[in-house]
């Protein structure tokens, strides 16, 4: 259970940490699991494509959500004096920057 005063700390930290972990997961392929669509099989961690393409998106979501939950929970347990100056704008500025990073990462699709 998260105390009322910790809720803003949790949601702000979660939004920021999730966005950072997501782009890191995608860039370094840190999927918690892999889905092979052709054979409809899940495999733990990253598995290369075998019979058909390997899908890592679900695994990236899981990695980011679990990691961000852990970071946000730890941060919300910190003494309030150390988190009271946490800027609420981190909840939107971090995902916004990560969105721009993705546009840069995927620019090759639009420049061919």
């Amino acid at each position, binding site marked *: 259970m998260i105390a009322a005063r910790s809720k803003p700390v949790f949601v702000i930290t979660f939004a920021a940490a999730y966005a950072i972990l*997501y782009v890191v997961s995608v860039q370094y392929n840190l999927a918690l699991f892999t889905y092979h669509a052709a054979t409809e099989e899940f495999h733990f961690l990253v598995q290369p494509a075998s019979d058909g393409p390997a*899908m890592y998106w679900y695994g990236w979501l899981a990695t*980011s959500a679990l990691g961000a939950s852990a970071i946000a929970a730890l941060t919300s347990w910190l003494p309030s004096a150390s988190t009271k100056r946490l800027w609420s704008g981190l909840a939107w500025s971090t995902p916004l920057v990560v*969105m721009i990073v993705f546009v840069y990462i995927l620019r090759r699709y639009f420049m061919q």
Partner: protein
Amino acid sequence: MIVALLILHGLLAVALLGAVTHQALSVWLPARKTASSFVARMRGVTATSYVNAIVVLYALTALLGGIIYPTYRLNVRIVLEQMQLHVPNGAFELKEHFVALGLGMLPAYWYFWRAPEAIEHARARAVLTAILAFIVWWGFLVGHVLNNIRGFDL
């Protein structure tokens, strides 16, 4: 079955698009006086009344998108690559990442809208709403274009 899910995904996206557009307009361009025109009435809604609907619709639409994604990966993306349709392919890649990032923003969005009178979070509320609106519009338009390219030939 996949076609039914794809249609349901599209219908949920339409509802989400309407809700988040109403909310974004009412936050960024609030109606100053009694709404008389169609556009003024669009802007004059009570933004807080859309919050729970947007959270639920976003989560459900993303969930359905996740369920039909393997079919896209097997039957649509490969065709796009063979046809060298790089822009639609890249637009979908952006869609999947933007939607994923939107999911991570939902708890903050929901929290900041729980107390709409809190002035200190007004900017966070407004920007989160605008980003979610952009993601939903991007996802909807890209999905629509890809569906036009590939149709229901799944």
